[in-house]
């Protein structure tokens, strides 16, 4: 799948799509019991010690349909999913939340730059190091 780049002014369809994604995300976290067990294994929380980067933090914000750039700090490692007693699909939710942010034109500038560089030069650094691949794939 080709990644969408950040758009400065979101179109009406982008807004609707972002709204739909937010509904899906809120549904994923509907049953979160806020036990905090997901914090115990999160590599980002371990370093930063800030609840906003933990899965419980994402759950609280996303279930209120609040999109914050803290979502981009998640490594999508899925460790929290192993600890979550409810088997919540935390990474799916984070991914969808990020997509909604991008659709709303609130993606990260650094990501946008990287994507532009990849399109231009075939690598995220923006330096020509050989032939550009014909097709670009992104996670």
């Amino acid at each position, binding site marked *: 799948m080709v990644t969408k780049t950040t758009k400065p002014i979101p179109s009406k369809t982008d807004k609707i799509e972002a709204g739909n994604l937010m509904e899906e995300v809120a549904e994923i976290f509907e049953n979160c019991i806020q*036990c*905090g*067990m997901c914090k*115990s294994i999160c590599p980002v929380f371990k370093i930063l010690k800030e609840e906003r980067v933990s899965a419980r933090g994402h759950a609280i*914000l996303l279930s209120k349909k*609040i999109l914050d750039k*803290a979502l981009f700090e998640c490594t999508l490692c899925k460790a929290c999913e192993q600890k979550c*007693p*409810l088997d919540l699909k935390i990474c799916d939710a984070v991914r969808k939340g990020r997509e909604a942010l991008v659709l709303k034109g609130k993606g990260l500038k650094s990501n946008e730059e990287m994507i532009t560089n990849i399109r231009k030069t075939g690598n995220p650094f923006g330096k020509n190091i050989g032939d550009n691949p014909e097709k670009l794939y992104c996670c």
Partner: protein
Amino acid sequence: MNKNLMNVYGVDASKMKGTPLDVFLPETIDEVKRIVTTNKRICIRGGATGLAGGAVPENNVDVILDMSKLDKISNLSGEHRLVEIEAGVILDDLREYLYEFGLEFPVKPSSHMVCTIGGMIATDAVGNRAIKYGKTSHWIKWVEVIDCNGKLERKGITELSDYAGLEGITGVIVRACLKLSSVKTRTASLVKVGDLDDIVATVREYKRNTSVSMIEFLDKGISKKIGLEDTYHLIIEYEDDSGKFKGRDYDKLLAKRDEVYPLIASDGFVRIEDPKIMLDKFPKLMRWLEDRKIPTFGHIGVGIIHPCFDYNQEKCIPEMMKVVKRLGGAISGEHGIGILKKAFVEFNDKKILENVKKRTDTLSKFNMGKVI
């Protein structure tokens, strides 16, 4: 902090909610002092695994003082079996650090991977091993506390009761000196018990065995839910190799036990209580709970049980508290009073707590609206 992000700091594991006025994440004790002197109303927060709403701020009134970044461990003395820690240290991080030296902090609530030592002292947390090691306060040499004027003071054993178990209403615990024990090799067994009266006799028998460090109870429904037979079960932990579950099997069994509450909460039984009852009164209380289909487990070795209520059953809680009091029990054995259990505190206990609060928190700054 950005207003949206502040929502994250408005909850704990009790599922109660509030909106903080602001959020602070100090990294040093001096920063805590500054935050305390420059704010009028402060709600203290550790790992926010509390089940009574103690770390939930009053809407747009309290600022949150999150202690998580005060996480230094220092001055370990193997000889004296002492270690000094800052309040935000997570219990499992401390356990991991001490393991290398053959030492451990033996009190272990089921939230050990997330709860902080500060939170454990403030709630005087009890763990699965309470029959052998008692409460958190039994393992504290001193605490350092910041009072409402921002003054740092060290409080020894004689003044500890003003802070341990007072749920942060008297001051901010910033450091503590913990007593330690040596690491033990542990094993466990699962014991099936047919009826409630037999449980009393069985528990009494195991309590006589000095190598037993944990006796946990699971009711029939919970046993079934975690893959055991549809009967009552006791998990017995030994500090020698008498148990059948050893090594990884032992670890797996204990991990299963730790997950009991989150598992039944996922079925809607979110509201967990923690009455403490004399062992011989346990069957009476259990029958009352079973009649109402309230799933129950807990630290039966010390008489603390955890009935879990779904939304419709919550209306039974005041009645259960009456039953507990009638049977001579206490309304909270370990989770604390917080906001959720305030209404059940006895008049005389309330008066005592109010006096301690007046004496220690003269500016009415900390955790207002909690406990009393």
